[in-house]
């Protein structure tokens, strides 16, 4: 009989398995993303597409300043390049300040950051009500109806990609007739609920239903997340890692990147693939490709 305690134990054992053995074993699909930071221009098209697709509430200046924005996908911007630092000791900024000219020599560094859909997601085992768990699609899901707003999950997320509804944002975010533009495929979240990037689960579900109706498997490239779809430079790739013929599985392979490890052991360490905070052993499923600059 499914019970709350049963759910929690399931999540714990999945988490342990993910942590110790690398990845889950119940996946039917394992959706993943590859983001080429050399192509990302930091233009915001993806994050705005996310607002439109996923019914994200805008919150205004004051709440934004209180870190209560609902942006599932944000573009971080940095001006230093620790890796390009000549000394290589990881203190690029301090060194740069001392030695560089008065102005930037290169542009900025942009980082699209959204839920990394960790296989060993640290947000999951801390939820007291099992509101966040792993789906058979390999996604870290949030059950809005279960969520009681303890915010433990957000505290435990090293990427800070969980957004909590501190307020009932809907009345201000969608004054009539703006509410007519809401996406009916997903809910509008209310006060006291945690939310996060779902890799556009409504699109995944729609594709799954279509494929089932037509009696076939989901085709590679059939599902496009909203951010991927609109990205003007095509910096974002999305797909199923369990499908070995998929484009994304091939990128992971070409980059000699492995899941389930906290340190990659590449035959060619110069390849551009890396995962952020991989050393925390959370096993993120978003693969970034290093930014490239002339020196």
């Amino acid at each position, binding site marked *: 009989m499914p019970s709350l305690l049963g759910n929690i134990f399931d999540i714990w054992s999945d988490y342990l398995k993910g942590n110790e053995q690398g990845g889950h074993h119940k996946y039917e699909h394992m959706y993943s993303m590859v983001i080429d930071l050399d*192509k990302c221009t930091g233009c915001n098209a993806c994050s705005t597409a996310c607002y439109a697709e996923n019914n994200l509430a805008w919150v205004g*200046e004051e709440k934004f300043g209180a870190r209560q924005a609902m942006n599932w996908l944000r573009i971080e*911007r940095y001006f230093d390049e620790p890796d390009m630092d000549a000394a290589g000791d990881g203190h690029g900024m301090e060194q740069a300040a001392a030695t560089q000219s*008065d102005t930037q020599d290169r542009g900025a560094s942009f980082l699209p950051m959204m839920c990394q859909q960790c296989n060993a997601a640290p947000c999951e085992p801390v939820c007291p009500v099992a509101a966040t768990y792993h789906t058979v699609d390999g996604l870290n899901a949030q059950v809005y109806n279960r969520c009681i707003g303890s915010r433990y999950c957000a505290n435990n997320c090293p990427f800070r990609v969980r957004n909590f509804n501190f307020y009932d944002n809907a009345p201000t975010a969608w004054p009539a007739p703006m509410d007519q533009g809401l996406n009916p495929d997903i809910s509008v979240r209310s006060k006291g609920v945690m939310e996060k990037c779902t890799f556009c689960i409504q699109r995944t579900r729609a594709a799954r239903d279509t494929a089932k109706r037509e009696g076939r498997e989901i085709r590679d490239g059939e599902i496009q997340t909203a951010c991927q779809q609109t*990205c003007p430079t095509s910096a974002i790739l999305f797909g199923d890692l369990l499908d070995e013929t998929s484009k994304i599985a091939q990128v992971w392979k*070409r980059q000699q990147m492995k899941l389930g490890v906290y340190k990659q052991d590449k035959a060619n360490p110069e390849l551009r693939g890396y995962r952020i905070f991989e050393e925390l052993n959370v096993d993120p499923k978003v693969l970034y490709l290093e930014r490239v600059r002339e020196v």
Partner: protein
Amino acid sequence: MSKTKIDRRNFLKVLGLGGAGAALAGCDMPSYVTSEEGVEKVYSYLAPEEYVIPGIGVWYASTCTQCPAACGVHGRVREGRVLKLEGNPDTAANAGKLCQMGQAAIQTHFHPERITQPTIGGKPATWDEALALINKKAGNASWVTGTVSGHQRVLMDAHLGTGTGRHYAIEVVNSRPWEDASAATLGDARPNLHIDKARAVLTIGADVLGTWGNPVKSMRDYGNFRDAPRGVLMAVEAAMSLTGANADHWIAARPGSEAAVTLGLGHVLMTKHGISPAGMPSAALAFKNMTPARVHELSGVSEAQLDKIADTLMANSPSLIIANASHAAAKTAQVLNLMLGNVGQTLTPGAALAAGGLAPVTGSSKDLVEFAMNAKAGKVSAAFITGTNPAFLAPASLDMARALDKVGFKVAIASFVDETTQSCDVVLPLSSALEDWGTHVPAFGGNPGDVHVQQPLMERVHADTRGLGDIVLGLAKEAGVDGLGDFEDYYGYLRTAVSAMIDSDLEGDWNRVLQAGQATSKSAPTAFTTGGDVALGYSEAVKSGGLSLITAARQGIYDGRHANLPWMQEAPDQISKAVWDSWAEINPKTAAGLGVKDGDYVTLSTAGGTVTTRVFTYKGVHPDAVCVPMGRGHTNYGQYADNGVNPLSILNAPSGDMTASEIIGSATPVTLSATGDNRHLIRLMDIDSQHGRKLVATIPATQFDRNQGGA
């Protein structure tokens, strides 16, 4: 039958086919059929309209009008409502992609502050009353618009042809210096750009990835440009743009000195690399005189930096130089493109539409200045204003308030109340772009002959609004334009015109056009005419020492037209990451000299006035420049736009002929004084450093090349 006499020549003209020689097969006017038929009867939803399947979203093609680029879109329609826009994969101008402004078109469409009914003198009125007044008082009216193209332009031209008014196309964010320079040097104002084919791209005051030309097309090409063999991007500008923020080499130049830097680059290419502008003795002389020492004096750009740019351009051929900082810089850049052999490779001839009347009239700030001058001189008796906001965009020195006051009769055709509509005698409520018919010819990035078709994606949200085409058609008919009498509405006109353009009036062909979101007009490739000598210049006015105010357009708020969209206000600025307010970008060295720090309020004083905003320090701005991005500081643009300051208002008075620089390219002497107040600037993130963590890892290009780019 029509009440006016139609002859074939005039008929073709009003359909935008002048000179096309297209054969018209049959002239029966299709009637207007919409889902509004049967609207007086209430049907149970058990029997929905045949095209509505509950729960199923259907994608229809249309055209985005959020900026002048005119990208093709697909809109997702479910239960009769449009919910999401995506790029149309079949339109070459954007190939399936869309920028954040396009994504936010949904918010413009469903905006709670849309104008829902006509007003006369600020008081609600009916369409009949408003149109009666217009017909009485708007004789010889001018059109004041943004960039327009397609059949809306044809009808505006036809309407103008009945009087003495003229067309003012106003865009302060524009590509005019580039277009003028290209026309002068290549004989083609809008050559095709091939960023993807270039091995090195140098931008000089042109935010190619952000707001210049068609940024979606440029970004798409940029994505390919970064594939192996990887192209090198360089940017010369006074304050970092989105393009500069993606550059391999970013070179800060003193505001207004961009032309001198471009000339200096020519000097280095001539003296160190032995290439010279063939058959252009005056250009060669200008290059010769602009020594690196002189460049450094004027711009602060060192000889080593010039060498680096020149070496990179020489080592990575073909390259492409795109300049928009000033007319002089753009002209010099085109001469450099000729010298480097880029013309014909990364710059190829565009195409001229056979139906020339459809071609885009690209806006400029020259028209803004001329409108102000002519209006103040009492030469504008009446004006229709749509798609632009001159009262907000004009520097204070132009005294736009007085200019508008002097226009005898003003009609705003607008979706939102703004600084301009509030001074208009009549305001006509405009349908949103997602409720309207139209055709648009992309000025940049389209294939030859591309005409993007805009069709309504849903019923009007506000029943009493009307489409731009319908309004212009009505005005043109009333003014007695030949050949329009039989068209009941703009749809009927557009369908006939497009059918004539594609030489078919078959139902199926029209449906295919709507499905594709585009039609192809006949066009002829243009040819470059090069070889003539070109006089090149630069501005002597720039000197070290004083501070100059510049402004910048950022994708998002743009020129201020999207400041009323919460999504755009809350999308962090790409560079400062600030939201919901303005800021002044100042170099840390300059800030230290002035004794101000992040979050300090400073008052910026120019000859044109003052604005007070907060300081944001970073190294992406020249020490002699203060950059305040434009678009905020509205005084009457709704509750969401009520923040920030408007730097455009205090910029220099533009010179009369506007051949030196556009308004936003002009460096305006400014002094700063701290008010003593400080408040934290709200930003997405308060750190600019990765603190040694591997968040965005960067590798040198040599490593990328060793691995053939990997993935």
